[in-house]
């Protein structure tokens, strides 16, 4: 197929509203998830996306079984509470961060699948599970309301991030110093937890609950290869994330590949490129 017909095909697809919705939502989610990615990677919480999305999966299974009209009413609060519990760092926690995340993550995944299996009324159980885990086609079946909700939440997340940018930096770099000098570090950690939970519930539509971590950490890691101060890393990570999501969406629409894994694939390629670029331009970076 030559270029002209590819572009023609893309233009044809773009005339369908559901394709346009998917692109809008995909780009916004990519933007939001990359913003907090830098903080989470630096706080050594890379896997929180995984843990929380599995919790969201478990909650979704329960909501499906209970026949709730809108899954969000259960999924969002459960995920937010789990995020708060996981990010509540401190010396007195018995189980350390990574173990707690692993525990909740695997537990919720197993529990969710179990519930779906026992109570499911659907004829295509493995298909349902697969689409929740990998996102599959749900991003292509969004309606107008869902798109508006997603736009609204993304705008809120972005504004919160910009307004609290300096505080998030201070708390990420040195929590003890912030606390000692009288900054409400606990409050900002709580804020980070809530925002990350909202992002994860949003992103489940796009890449499914297995691949969310990729959306959160890859842009941040790529940006850290290239830049050395926090502001540049954050901006670069946001740009990379949006570009990768856009490229992934277009490829998946044209080639008919699964949306989530295509986007993550592009993220991986970009990371490798950034890694090599980082090696070439500055040998000092570890």
């Amino acid at each position, binding site marked *: 197929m030559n270029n002209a017909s590819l572009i023609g095909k893309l233009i044809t697809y773009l005339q369908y509203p559901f394709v346009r919705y998917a692109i809008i939502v995909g780009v916004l989610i990519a933007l939001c998830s990359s913003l907090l990615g830098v903080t989470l990677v*630096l*706080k*050594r919480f890379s896997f929180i996306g995984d843990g929380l999305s599995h919790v969201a999966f478990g909650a979704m299974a329960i909501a499906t079984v209970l026949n709730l009209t809108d899954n969000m009413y259960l999924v969002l609060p459960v995920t937010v509470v789990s995020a708060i519990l996981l990010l509540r760092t401190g010396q*007195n926690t018995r189980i350390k961060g990574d173990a707690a995340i692993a525990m909740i993550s695997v537990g919720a995944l197993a529990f969710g699948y179990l519930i779906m299996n026992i109570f499911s009324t659907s004829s295509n159980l493995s298909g349902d599970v697969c689409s929740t885990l990998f996102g599959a086609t749900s991003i292509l079946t969004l309606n107008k309301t869902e798109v508006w909700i997603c736009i609204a939440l993304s705008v809120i997340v972005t504004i919160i991030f*910009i*307004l*609290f*940018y*300096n*505080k998030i*930096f*201070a708390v990420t*770099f*040195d929590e*003890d*110093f*912030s*606390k*000692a*000098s*009288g*900054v409400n570090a606990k409050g900002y950690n709580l804020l980070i937890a809530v925002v990350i939970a909202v992002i994860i519930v949003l992103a489940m539509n796009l890449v499914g609950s297995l691949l969310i971590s990729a959306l959160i950490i890859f842009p941040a890691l790529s940006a*850290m290869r290239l*830049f*050395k*101060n*926090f*502001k540049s*890393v954050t901006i670069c990570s946001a740009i990379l994330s949006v570009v990768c999501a856009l490229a992934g969406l277009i490829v998946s629409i044209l080639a008919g590949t699964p949306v989530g894994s295509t986007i993550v694939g592009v993220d991986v390629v970009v990371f490798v490129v950034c890694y090599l670029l980082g090696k070439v331009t500055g040998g*000092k970076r*570890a």
Partner: protein
Amino acid sequence: MALIKAESLALGYDNGIIVKDLDFEVNAGDYLCIVGENGSGKSTLMRTLLGLQNPKGGRIILGDGLTKKEIGYLPQQTQVQKDFPASVREIVISGCQARCGLRPFYNREEKGLAEKNMERLGITDLSARSYRELSGGQQQRVLLARALCATQKLLILDEPVSGLDVKVTAELYTIIKELNHDGITIIMVSHDIAAAVKYASHILHIGDQIFFGTRDSYLESRQGKLFLEAEGSDGNE
């Protein structure tokens, strides 16, 4: 009135008390060194002074108009910070965060304060450099400049020279002494008793026996004499 006054303070974690009946006070302009063996409760005391943990008994009174937002802290470096992508300027100005309250961005006054403190510590030319590329001594200066953005009154330093070589250690001690001369009260946790005796005005020795007093009276005390003997015999070997 004292800047900080501890009254029959007891310190410890969930499973027990490490130190009790601790009484001392820090006045404006003092240079207090907290010394003692590993595990004697130095760090616990410091974390309690900073308000990072609660005392098991007794109380700490802040006086002389000192508020919690005016305590500058020089922590030990964490693993996270060693590869943190941040420029020197970003880190120094983050010391102003407590002044900001809920205001999202730094104002001109705070930016000026950050510049002033970078100048004071001789790191202005490093301001655009990445923190993780600096040497240990330079990193300590950056964190000290950040602490100065948070306070004009009181600095609490946690083992500031650990991991630094002799020359850089001496430089850092000189800087701290100068800050003290400029009127900033210093509380330093250290296991470098030699430096403590050399620079401090007051010593708090915690361990089996607690000593609190001026440097001179410490040298006259039993613990001080023990220490001096140990130093002397080290020198002879």
